[in-house]
């Protein structure tokens, strides 16, 4: 029945003169679209989403309430120290999707999860049907999803107001509600759309859209992203290939205790 409807929709689309949607590969169940792989956004939307990936409103501006806009400006002025991502907090939704680091989609029939390299955040997507677990606020929220033909639609709530949307200080409150859509547009491109609403901060819902590109280099994988404190107690991201990350490179413990 569903397949019949899909066929009708397909024909209607073709008849309307548009290109037929990309038909993704399937998981071992023969049904579920296969989104597995390592993906990464390009461009510089992580610096400021306004005017870059905000597609609605058409002017590319987030429709802030006046007092919220004032706070955004304050965030912007303090961004060099106030950005929570600098302190190795998890990036939140949707920011984790377009930070300049890859993510990996893990999937099997009935399971869907995204692992974000930045701060080793992850989200386990739970099927719709049970209510949100929203008794508290999280960095990565609580996610329920469903498939609409070959598009994954995720409903995300319960997010902390400490998270930012980009390096420019765009923000939301705990009333934040995101509806995400993930759709393969070719074998190596995944379209990501997020519709945001937050009656405390915005005058109307707004939408951003960006493309994730498959990381195709052989052997590419998500690597560990961890932070170390410097001498002043400030945390910095450090690469697993940075010799400073290796204990014996900087630690005094194998030396004889000082007299």
């Amino acid at each position, binding site marked *: 029945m569903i397949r019949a409807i899909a066929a009708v929709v397909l024909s209607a689309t073709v008849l309307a003169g548009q290109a037929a949607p990309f038909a993704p590969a399937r998981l071992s169940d023969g049904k579920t679209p296969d989104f597995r792989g390592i993906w990464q956004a390009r461009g510089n939307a992580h610096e400021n989403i306004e005017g870059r990936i905000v597609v609605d409103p058409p002017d590319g501006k987030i429709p802030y309430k006046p007092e919220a806009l004032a706070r955004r400006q304050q965030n912007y002025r303090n961004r060099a120290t106030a950005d929570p991502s600098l302190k190795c*907090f998890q990036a939140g939704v949707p920011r984790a999707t377009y930070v300049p680091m890859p993510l990996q989609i893990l999937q099997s029939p009935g399971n869907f999860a995204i692992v974000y390299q930045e701060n080793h955040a*992850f989200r386990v997507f739970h099927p719709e049907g049970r209510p949100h677990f929203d008794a508290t606020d999280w960095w990565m929220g609580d996610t329920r999803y469903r498939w609409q033909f070959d598009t994954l639609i995720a409903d995300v709530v319960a997010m902390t107001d400490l998270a930012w949307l980009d390096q420019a200080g765009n923000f939301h409150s705990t009333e934040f509600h995101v509806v995400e859509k993930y759709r393969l547009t070719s074998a190596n491109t995944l379209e990501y759309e997020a519709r945001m609403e937050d009656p405390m901060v915005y005058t109307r819902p707004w939408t951003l859209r960006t493309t994730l590109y498959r990381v195709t280099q052989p052997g590419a994988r998500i690597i560990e992203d961890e932070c170390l404190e410097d001498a002043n107690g400030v945390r910095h991201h450090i690469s697993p290939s940075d010799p400073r990350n*290796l204990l014996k490179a900087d630690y005094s413990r194998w030396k004889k205790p000082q007299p």
Partner: protein
Amino acid sequence: MRRALFVVALCALAAGSRFLFLSAQSPAGESTSLPRLPDGHPDLQGLWLKSAGGFQGLFIGSLDGTNFAAPGGGGRGGRAGGRAGGGPPPPPRYEYTPEAEAERQDRLKRGYEDPEARCHLPGVPRALDQPGGLYPVQIIQDDKYVALLHEAMHDVRIIPTDNSPHPKNYWAWDGDSRGRWEGDVFVVDVSNFNGRTWLDMAGNFVDENEHVVERFRLLDRETIQYEATVTDPTVFVKPIEFRFTLKRVPSEQQILEYSCLEGERSLQHYTNEDGGKKQRAK
């Protein structure tokens, strides 16, 4: 039949005899009842929680081994099983090399600085050997990897099963994991540690020469037997064996988000001295 076998396995565990335990697993045909993926390997997927075994109960105390955790409060994952009145078991004492023992003694003077209390990744096998019953792990698996998503420290290990080698010039808190199937047992070789992690809350530490071999064995739909052998020739005189069971979490429960780095205030509570405070003093 499965229940009978499980009872036998439990008895073997109680007897502490690895040989007896393994031989109880050998009856041919039993393994065919395990849930499997299309590639034929046992299906480890689901949400799992350490239920019994492991060296580590909740440890609140000093590095000399005193455990101040309230009797019956915590320690459910400890060797003694947190029996009423008994309190949590004392932390294990391993045999250190002379150099490492000197370092351990030096730490006793320097104070308590558990890297996990500073929100760092726990390493292996501590990622799984969390205080009993606290943090589950979600496993997602396909023909190319087995992924462990730990609630604790939102730690992630995506373990490839493609026979690829460990990388060079890569040193991580969780090391680098490469998996393979030996029959129905998922075996993980973990190397490339950065050497900063502890094995438990009691200050047993490793260095960058740590090497771990883990074994995940699905006993039945509800149970994974986990074993890990930790070798670190510059720290320990002989290999250390970990063994505990993971039980499936009922499907109405879900993994939650663990958040850290928000101003750890409990470091000083881990010790009866002022080590924690001293470390945090501005």
